[in-house]
């Protein structure tokens, strides 16, 4: 038998304990086994259910609060098929907006680094996203479409499932909104008639905030699980045909900052 702070444990009994930092932990499988084998006391069951329901209520509250926040101040009116152009994508399939260069700065916790990002629409549905150092050395090259993600090249430290998933999600959000065949739920601002919000299933649930007067996409609010959502701001005030873009990843301290420049 071992004594680990809150309650003593052995193979058949209680499994609520406190770690060195005083955080409560439990072995879910062992507890369930104990309950079903009827080997634990009422005291154990009481603690187990109290802890379990606390977590459950927290999750429900978080979901309710965050889902309300996304459409606060908006009224929903209709659901219809929306054309891709109505979302004012940063990169477009034709004309001057087919190819863009950005100075990109990536901040991950205390680390920060920069390079240049080429974004090019190579077909109606495929967007190439290529990151190079100022010296021209390629860090990664992705081909992103609404339902596909190809890693054409990527340096080894980035070739990790989690990292690639974050890049896939974030770049798809920024540059590859959707092909324009789905019926989307549409929200309108109660105060500003120029504001319209489209709800998309893109890397989780995403709300695309459009200013119809300025004909620009100015914000994307994304909620996704398990990576966590992201918030993206598009700023056209610099007078460029491409916006300055800031992406803030929720849950982890990851921030992308993209400043357009002309080659």
């Amino acid at each position, binding site marked *: 038998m071992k004594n680990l702070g809150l309650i003593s444990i052995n193979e058949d009994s209680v499994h609520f304990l406190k770690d060195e930092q005083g955080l409560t932990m439990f072995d879910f499988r062992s507890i369930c086994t104990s309950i079903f084998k009827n080997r634990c006391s009422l005291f154990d069951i009481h603690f187990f259910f109290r802890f379990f329901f606390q977590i459950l209520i927290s999750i429900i509250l978080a979901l309710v609060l965050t889902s309300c926040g996304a459409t606060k101040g908006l009224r929903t009116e209709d659901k219809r098929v929306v054309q891709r152009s109505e979302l004012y994508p940063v990169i477009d399939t034709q004309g001057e907006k087919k190819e863009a260069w950005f*100075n990109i*700065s990536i901040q*991950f*916790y205390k*680390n*920060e*680094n*920069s*390079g*240049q990002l*080429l974004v*090019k629409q*190579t077909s109606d549905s495929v967007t*190439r996203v*290529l990151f*190079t*150092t*100022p*010296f*021209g*050395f*390629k*860090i990664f*090259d992705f081909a992103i479409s609404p339902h596909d993600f190809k890693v*054409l*090249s990527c*340096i*080894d*430290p*980035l070739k990790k499932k989690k*990292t690639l998933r974050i890049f896939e999600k974030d770049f798809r959000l920024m540059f590859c909104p959707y092909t324009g065949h789905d019926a989307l739920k549409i929200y309108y601002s109660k105060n500003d008639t120029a504001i319209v919000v489209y709800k998309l299933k893109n890397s989780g649930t995403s709300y695309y905030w459009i200013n119809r007067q300025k004909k620009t996409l100015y914000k994307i609010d994304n909620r996704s699980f398990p990576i966590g959502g992201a918030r993206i701001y598009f700023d056209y005030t610099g007078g460029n045909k491409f916006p300055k873009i800031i992406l803030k990843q929720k849950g982890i301290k*990851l921030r992308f900052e993209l400043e357009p*420049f*002309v*080659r």
Partner: protein
Amino acid sequence: MIKFFRYLLLLLLIGGIQQAGAQPKMKKMADVNGFKTNLLSSTQKAKSIECDFIQKKFLEVLEEPVVSKGIFCFKRENFVRWEYLSPIKYLIIINNDKVLVKDEKKTNVIDTRTNKLFKELTDMMMSCFKGNLQVIEKKYSIQYFEDEKNYMTHLVPLDKNAGTYLKNIDMYFDKNDMTISKLIIVEPSNDYTEYVFINKKLNSAIPDEKFRIN
């Protein structure tokens, strides 16, 4: 991700010092030992190099190369300044064990002593400028070529890890002054970057201020 940032800084350096296919009209070098001796003695005489550079990045996804321009400075023993002026301003300074990376908004200083791989690369860069090929021979297999105007060394990394991001490096040396005139860095995907060094000034008085990091 943290490893990624280390790598990124590392690649910044590698880029700074890549075979765009075959070496056009170049033949095998007749006297490799003579070349090595000549390179070493010539570069030892060069206390400093100051020149303009034109960087062309050839990407499969683009029809036209991506062109950048700037100024390059090297000063003995271990000072390098790589300054981009267009289309965007960017600066890299190597001052012995310290590397400064500065863009229009931020400055980052790296100590190469804490990063073994990073140190290896700065050492390689310095070996190139000092004409000391012995250091490079340990890390790369080298083939030697020449034509009327240039000597060329074709470097292929021996290390498998290096081979994942670097296919080969071609270094062109001007036969007149034995200084680097062109550098081509080829990636495994066959995208490549070409650096051409022009308007070279040897042994000009470059103030130490230009290499100051702090």
